């Protein structure tokens, strides 16, 4: 019990200490694995052990010769690039309309566009494959991209809607009353104000697409193998240190991209 006579508030301290301790454990739990995979990939030996037996960059050098892996990485980049472009260009206007309209259809569209986040993605991937076969077609890159758009667009919608809700309506009204057209207002007032939200959402969509397995599993064939599937099969069949080296590369690039996204789009504040 806090009271004037006791200088130290033990109860307050105990709560703070408990929560800080749990948070500290959680941070080790969250960040540790990424650090360990990087250190493991620097091993000089053939085996995946931590701590590594000697340090070398040989497995990173081996990546330069891994043609299949490079091809898969390139495919993933192309798919994620197109997916992000489509998510941003289709998602931003949709978010704008959903935000502006208070009608029932806006709520229903919101629910529809968000539902891929809650539905099992693997079931959707399978449904898409069945649908493509029913149409007499075969899986291909354009279908893969469309499938990714469905599961990635909720990220753009979420962050854009959050940014819109912070928007000061007076600014839009001022722009309109000064004679700016709807497009002009959007281009010169709305977009600059919600740009960080759209940017953070696009970043999340890109990462989600680059990382997607459940949809790619069904919509990518042998010819169009994407990186996560390639790595997944590598880990399931023969675990070698090259996989750790790719993981190291991915962790470092992710970290750099996140820092850029944090700097320019305020990633952590946009995700809340």
């Amino acid at each position, binding site marked *: 019990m806090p009271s004037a006579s006791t200088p130290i508030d033990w109860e307050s301290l105990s709560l703070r200490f408990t929560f800080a301790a749990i948070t500290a454990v959680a941070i080790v739990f969250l960040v540790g694995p*990424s650090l*360990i995979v990087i250190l493991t990939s620097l091993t000089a030996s053939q085996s995946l052990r931590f701590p590594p037996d000697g340090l070398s960059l040989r497995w990173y050098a081996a990546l330069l010769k891994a043609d299949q892996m490079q091809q898969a990485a390139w495919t993933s980049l192309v798919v994620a690039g197109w997916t992000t472009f489509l998510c941003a260009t289709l998602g931003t206007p949709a978010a704008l309309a959903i935000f502006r309209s208070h009608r029932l259809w806006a709520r229903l569209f919101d629910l529809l566009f968000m539902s891929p986040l809650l539905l099992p993605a693997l079931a959707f991937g399978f449904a898409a494959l069945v649908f493509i076969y029913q149409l007499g077609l075969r899986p291909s890159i354009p279908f893969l991209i469309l499938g990714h758009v469905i599961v990635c667009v909720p990220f753009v919608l979420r962050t854009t809607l959050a940014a819109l809700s912070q928007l000061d309506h007076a600014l839009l009204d001022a722009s309109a009353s000064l004679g700016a057209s709807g497009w002009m207002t959007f281009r010169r007032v709305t977009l600059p104000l919600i740009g960080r939200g759209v940017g953070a959402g696009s970043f999340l969509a890109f990462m989600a697409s680059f990382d997607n397995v459940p949809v790619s599993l069904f919509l990518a064939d042998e010819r169009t193998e994407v990186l996560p599937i390639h790595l997944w099969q590598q*880990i399931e069949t023969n675990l070698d240190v090259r996989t750790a080296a790719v993981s190291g590369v991915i962790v470092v690039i992710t970290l750099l991209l996140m820092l850029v996204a944090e700097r320019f789009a305020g990633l952590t504040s946009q995700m809340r």
Partner: protein
Amino acid sequence: MRDSDLRLVLPLGAIFAVCFAAPLAVLIALSFASDTTMRGLTLDHYVRFITDPFNYSILWNTLLLGVKATLLCLLFAYPIAWIANRARARWQAVLLFLVILPIMTSVVVRTFSWIVILGRQGLLNQVAMGLGLTAEPLRLLFTELGVVMVLAQVQMPLMVLPILTVMSKTDPNLADASRALGAGEWRTLWRVTLPLSLPGVIAGCILTYSASVTAFVTQTLIGGARLVYMPLHIYQQAIGANNWPFAAAISIIFMVAVLCVVALLNLLIRMTPANAER
């Protein structure tokens, strides 16, 4: 309604109609068809699921896996959100950055790093044997405990962010008032802060739960081939056994089951004290 607003939604709406609603409709139709050519109308696949205990034990285990992962996640996420809410803006950003890091890193990569840690000669076993806690290496990989741990790590931001959002919007005067009236910190947490943050907790549970039950890569790589959950079951029936109508039926059952859990949790949000007075 302004026509211009509807026009803005239509492109994405059209894509969702063709690439989302239509495939799901075909999936439902296929689940009632007797073969892949979509001829015949039958309930066989659903009957087969219901009458085979193996099938619904998979469904039950999957739904339960989600509960376990969500609870473990909550145990860590709530204190993180509480600390982040009180931290200065700069530290809050650093903390959130660390929390988001795992979910941003490729799922295969983060699962792979856990294989290095949990394996027979992995880091955890080395530490446990080095400290003399165990003579034999512990089996962590290919166990449900391992899957639950990895899922909790990966989905942490999905739990932390909604809780933090609600906490940061709650009037801090309420907690101050509780303390001023003589309630201690723990009591204030239990009687004031926690009830007020419940909508965030439940929203976090919805996201964590639906992500955990469908986490195919984590489930297969950490769980191995013997621990079968619904996503792997669907994949095996669709690609391995090439039994598309049955795979369609279990996909539908799985989706409906997950949506039921989500709907139930959504109902809970409305009953929380923060929303009850409205």
